[in-house]
Every structure is written in C-alpha cells, then in structure tokens.
C-alpha cells in the first residue's frame, strides 16, 4: 500500500528525512512518533505527494513518486483523507461546506452529499455546529471538523497529523475509537502524534522518528 525505500528529503539548509525504509500494508494502523521537528509531517506530505523525495523510491497504492504525472496527483489524493496539523479550514465557508468540499471536488451530487456530511459531523460530535463558521469554533472543535472532512469520502487511506493536539483526553478517546472502527472496515490509518496515550492500549505498529531518522519500531 505505502512503501518507502531509502527515502531522503532535504530542505534548503537541513535534511528533514534520511534513508527512510518502511512498508505499510493495506488495512494496517500505524503510528509515527518523535519529537518536534523530527520529520513526521514531512513524511506524511511525501505520502500525499505534496513534496517529492530527493532520493529514494516512494510507492503509494501503485503510484510511483518519481514517475507520477502532475495531472494525476489529484486522483491519487482522492483515495486519501488527510487531517492536517494546521487544519486548513476554509474560513469563509460554513462547517457543512468545509466538510462537503471533499465530496464536491469529487463531483458528487448535492443530494448524496448532505447525508454523508451529517454522518461525518455526527462522528466527531459536531452535528449541531454545521451552520457555524470555523472562526466561531473552539480549537478542539475546529480540529474535529478537519477529522470529519478527512473521513467523509470513505478514503482508502487516512493520514492524521497530530489529530488530537487540541482535544481533551475524553474527546481524543472518542476520535480514536472512530479511527479504529474505520480501520476495522479495511481502511489503512496512519497517525503522526506525540500523544502516547493514543496508542498505549491499542493493537498497532509504532515507528519512532528522531531528527529525520527512523530509530525504532515497536509492535504491540
């Protein structure tokens, strides 16, 4: 499903990832963890091809990073639901529209969009906020809208970057339960986080990053 072979990514004056190797199978639930600035977000950006690797091979569900055409990247991304660390909500659109945009981009008809959006909002306990605007929500509520947008289109892969940074333990637990349910249906789930509570009592793989290196892997 997701394969990294000797991947290195450099920014202007620093190496963000160095010789990374791993393989994530379809239906797995994987956590990436590591200190601030260790390269977790960069790794996820490589997966949804917002960045190109400087060296090495990346293969995502059959698409190769070094041969993929610019014009087919949108279609790759339609298989992926992303929880961005910096939210990326559209501030001038309602919560409903913010979630619906993921379906509209795919050309879905309005009639089918409505029930799906309300379902996703219910999963993150925000059904009652659907007519509100992002800047009128609390930090944790905004984060949950991002999660709803990531899951609404039933993607093949979910990439969640620090999805509970603004959530209290109880809410975080609810969100994790939802991810597990989705994972149980066959969706691959990849989560970058430093909240150890999230994976303390879960059957999963944890990969540890430190300043760009994959330092250890922990199964349990």
């Amino acid at each position: 499903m997701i394969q990294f072979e000797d991947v290195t990514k450099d920014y202007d004056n620093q190496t963000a990832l160095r010789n990374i190797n791993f393989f994530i199978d379809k239906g797995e639930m994987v956590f990436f963890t590591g200190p601030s600035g260790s390269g977790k977000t960069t790794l996820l950006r490589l997966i949804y091809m917002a960045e190109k690797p400087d060296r090495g091979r990346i293969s995502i569900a059959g698409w190769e990073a070094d041969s993929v055409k610019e014009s087919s990247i949108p279609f790759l991304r339609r298989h992926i639901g992303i929880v961005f660390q910096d939210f990326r909500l559209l501030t001038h659109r309602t919560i409903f529209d913010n979630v619906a945009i993921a379906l509209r981009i795919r050309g879905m008809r309005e009639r089918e969009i409505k029930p799906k959006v309300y379902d996703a909002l219910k999963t993150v306990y925000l059904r009652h906020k659907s007519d509100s605007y992002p800047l009128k929500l609390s930090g944790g509520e905004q984060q949950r809208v991002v999660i709803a947008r990531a899951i609404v289109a039933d993607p093949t892969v979910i990439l969640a970057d620090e999805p509970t940074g603004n959530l209290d333990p109880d809410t975080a637990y609810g969100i994790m339960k939802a991810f597990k349910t989705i994972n149980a249906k066959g969706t691959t789930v990849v989560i970058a986080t430093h909240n150890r509570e999230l994976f303390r009592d879960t059957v999963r793989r944890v990969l540890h990053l430190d300043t760009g290196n994959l330092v250890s892997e922990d199964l349990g």
Partner: protein
Amino acid sequence: MPLPYTVRLAVQSLFKEPWVNLLSILTIGVGLFIISLAFLIVYNFDMATRKLPDKFSLNVYLDHNLSQERVRNIVGAFREKDAVYSVRHIPKQDALEELKNMLKDSPFVFEGLDDNPLPDSLEIKLKEKALGLETVRALANEALNIQGVNEVDYGEKFLSTIHNLKRGLHSFGAILIVILSAGIIFVCYSTVKILFYRKMDEIETYKLLGATKGFIRSPFLIEGFLIGATGGILSLLGVNAFYYLSVLKLSLSIPLFSSIIFPAQFFLWLPVIGMFLGISGAGVALGRMKY
C-alpha cells in the same frame, strides 16, 4: 469537472470581494467608454470627410470667347478622366449672377458695370476615392495643359489640412485604442492575480483535497468573463447616456452636436469586447501562475 458548482463559486466570489471587482469593472467600463468616444470622434470625422466630394470642387476657368464646340470638347475631355465624377458648365452670365448674389450686400460694386467681365467656367466634382491631395494636384496640372483652359482653382490648403487631420486623428485613435485595450487586459490580469493570491491558501487546500486544475481555474475564468462583460455593459450604458445627454440635449444649444452620427450597431459589441478582454486577462494571469 462539475461546472455548476464552479459557477456558484465564481459568483459567490464576485460578491465576497466587492472592492477588487467593483474597481476592475469600473476601470474596464471607463476604459471601453473612452475607447468608444475616441472611435466616435474618428468615425464622425471620417463620415464628415466622406461627404467632402459633394462640397469640394475644382474650378476650371476657360479662355474668353471660346466656341461652343470647343467648350463641349473640353467638357468631354474632363468627363473621360477616371477621377472625375461630374462636370458642370457655368456660362459667364450665370457666373455674373452668382457673383452679384455673393456681393449683394455691396451692390454698388457693380454700379458702373456694362459688360460681363467674367469667363465661362467648369465646376468639376471628383469621385470620393480620388480626393487625395496628389491626385487633385495632378489633375489640375493636366487641366492647365488643355488648350482653352486659362486657370484652375482648388482649395489646396483646405484639402491638405483635412488630409493631415485625418491622418493625425487616425493614428491618435489607433494608439488610444491599443493602449486602453492593453490597459483593460492588464486590469483583468491583475484582478485575477489579486484574487488568486488572496485565495492562494484556499486553492492550496483544494489541491491537497484532490481538486483538478480545471476545478480550480474555471471560477477565475468565469470571474474574468463576468467582470469584463459587466464592464462592457457599463460602458454601453455610458455611451448611451453620453449620446442622449450631449448629442440630443446639448445640440439644442450647440447645433454642431446635432450632426454627430451615432453608430449604435458598433457599440452593441461593447459587452462582447469586454467579455473577450476579461477572459484574455484571466487566461494570461492563470497561464503565468504556478500552482
């Protein structure tokens, strides 16, 4: 590409960014309005000078006491020339009448006059296309070589002034139209750029969610189209307002204005032109944008 949704996006965006859009629409409207005025001036000048052949004539004065026969020959010779539209023979009696008429405020001039001192003359009108300064000058020289022709008279200075004015106006109009059209394209261009930069973040989000180029671009093209077309309609209204105010109202006090010709059928193209310029601007702006 789900067109209806992108159209909705474009229209929403028009109303969400009222200032940029109003600014662009007004600028385009005023630009096209000024182009129209320039066109109106050039057009009217052309129309006015097109009537010139009716007013312009070459006066050929014949020698005294030519035979009827000879006069008829000379008239015939002129009629055969390519540039000539009509030849009128003015007998000296008629010429005297005309002169008396012209000087009727000072009839005393003719008080002591017994004999008709005037010669026969020909009034030659030219075809429109032959009304260049060179053609007329050549024709005058030819005429002088015909036996029996004493003198040829034509408004050389008048003709060359008109000629130069026409040339000047034409180049002035052309320059104005080119500059302002470029200006309008630039306005659309920078409007789209402004809107685009302002939405950079939103666009990046769309892209990351899997939107195609078409989905992202079409709202901007539609916006350029709407801005250009609205500007064009505005200038059409402006031109019509100008027509009713200045041509119809002002002509009551200033008769000069009443002779202005208003080619309505041309101005109906303004919205189409605006639309075209709007899309061009947007297209150029999108083409040069990396995303």
